[in-house]
């Protein structure tokens, strides 16, 4: 197997099963996926890494039919509330992209897929969610 790299730095591939991590404000407990100069909630400047759950529920979704070149459509974009805290946006996969199959509140779990391969043969690994039952 060639080299792999996560598509974003808040996806961790090399520490047990793939999972997401967030920057947690020491002050307020607020979670951020991106680097912050200070906590937008409290103004605090101390952060620690926090491992997030790989399961959650779909709080909202859309089925995208018209998108940017190179992206197969239709596909499902979902907002997922993770069990134990954290809210994340990702594609919903392994489900028919129609409103009869995608349901608000459905339980989902994290999965990964290859988003592309660069000229050195390194695979970019992305995360998505799939129905949990």
């Amino acid at each position: 197997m060639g080299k792999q790299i996560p598509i974003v730095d808040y996806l961790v591939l090399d520490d047990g099963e793939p999972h997401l991590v967030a920057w947690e404000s020491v002050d307020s407990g607020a979670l951020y996926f991106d680097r912050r100069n200070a906590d937008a909630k409290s103004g605090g400047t101390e952060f620690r890494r926090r491992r997030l759950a790989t399961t959650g529920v779909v709080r909202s979704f859309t089925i995208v039919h018209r998108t940017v070149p190179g992206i197969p459509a239709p596909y499902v974009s979902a907002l997922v509330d993770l069990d134990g805290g954290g809210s994340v946006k990702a594609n919903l996969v392994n489900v028919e992209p129609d409103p009869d199959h995608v349901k608000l509140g459905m339980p989902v779990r994290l999965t990964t897929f290859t988003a592309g391969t660069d000229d050195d043969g390194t695979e970019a690994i992305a995360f998505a969610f799939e129905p949990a039952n």
Partner: protein
Amino acid sequence: MSGQDVWILGTYMTKFGRHNDVDLIDLAAEAAMGALRDGGVTIHDMDVLGAGSLFNAQAGVGQQLQKQIGQTGIPVYNVANACATGATALRTVYLSIRAGEADMGLAVGVEQMGKGGLLGAAGKGDRGRTVYEPKGRYGSVMQVEGLLGTGLMPGVFAQAGMEYAYEHDGVGFEQFAKVAEKNHAHSTLNPLAHYQKQFSLEEIMNAEMMAYPNTLLMCCPNTDGAAAVVLVGEEKLRTLSADQQRRAVKISASVLTTDPWTERAQVQPDVNTLTRNAAKQAYETAGVDPQDLDLVELHDCFATAELIHYDNLMLCEPGGAGKFIDERGPWRDGAIPVNVSGGLISKGHPIGATGIANIYEVSTHLRGEAGDRQIEGAKVGLTHVIGLGSACAVHILEKGAA
């Protein structure tokens, strides 16, 4: 709060649509001169100019406009504030009058969108050799649009609407589509709207799907256009003619908000909290209750957005936005008419102009000059815009007592 009351003395909007035969400044000049004429004043009476244009924010639109309609040396503020750009330009003039720096001022919003396509994502072609390297604050190795969900506008606002559907009963595809049915129907009475075509609910639901539940007929088009207002302070207004005073419209509240921190807004814009905050503040300042409103022009960039703003602006019972549209509450003959202009969905959304065009619409009704689409006896109206990032402006306007 200090400062005198501020009134709308003149207002104008251009026909919204595709204007390939004129340039941005032509549109701005038509609106500016139209508003001055409407107010019975000239550029020489203006003490300040606010100019809003999002896609030409660095172009000095205000100064370019002065060179076409009158260079009088007054301060110009060129502003950009997402979809609240026009409303923010208006507020620079409003604040100048409240601060006592100006008696009268002109605010212009203008945009030429052309055939803009989908807004929201930077398209980036692959060029040459690709080697993945984490970049930016998320350490991303490639464009993530479509790989980690969507950030394109139709999808973002679809998700905002579906979140409301998750939290409240009686809201689904059909309720969202009914919003577009209403706005397209309303637009048939507005000659300045980009489109004036009625569609059945079936036609709307069967139109090309963009991002479920938003079909093409539930999305605002890319539109060119401009709108302008002349504002005047109370003291100065009282020195003007009886007719100018009679037609003047009072700005009873002018509020601008941004996002307070909310937990879930980190991955999906929260268009609700800042709208609620702006609305609450505006109702309180104006001493107006939502049920007092005779008409509302709100930011229906997508049908899903309009529905949730019924609740955010407190036009319906909490959680009752689905019921409100089902009962035809926001239709022009309903409890609180919403977007009788046709809204962004049918009138169009030239971004910089939108937050002044809605002021034009409500003012025109309050003056009793809206012709075929007049809401009879309108005395109080509300305008709302929201731009992602986010910025939200709410204005409450009242018919003059004179």
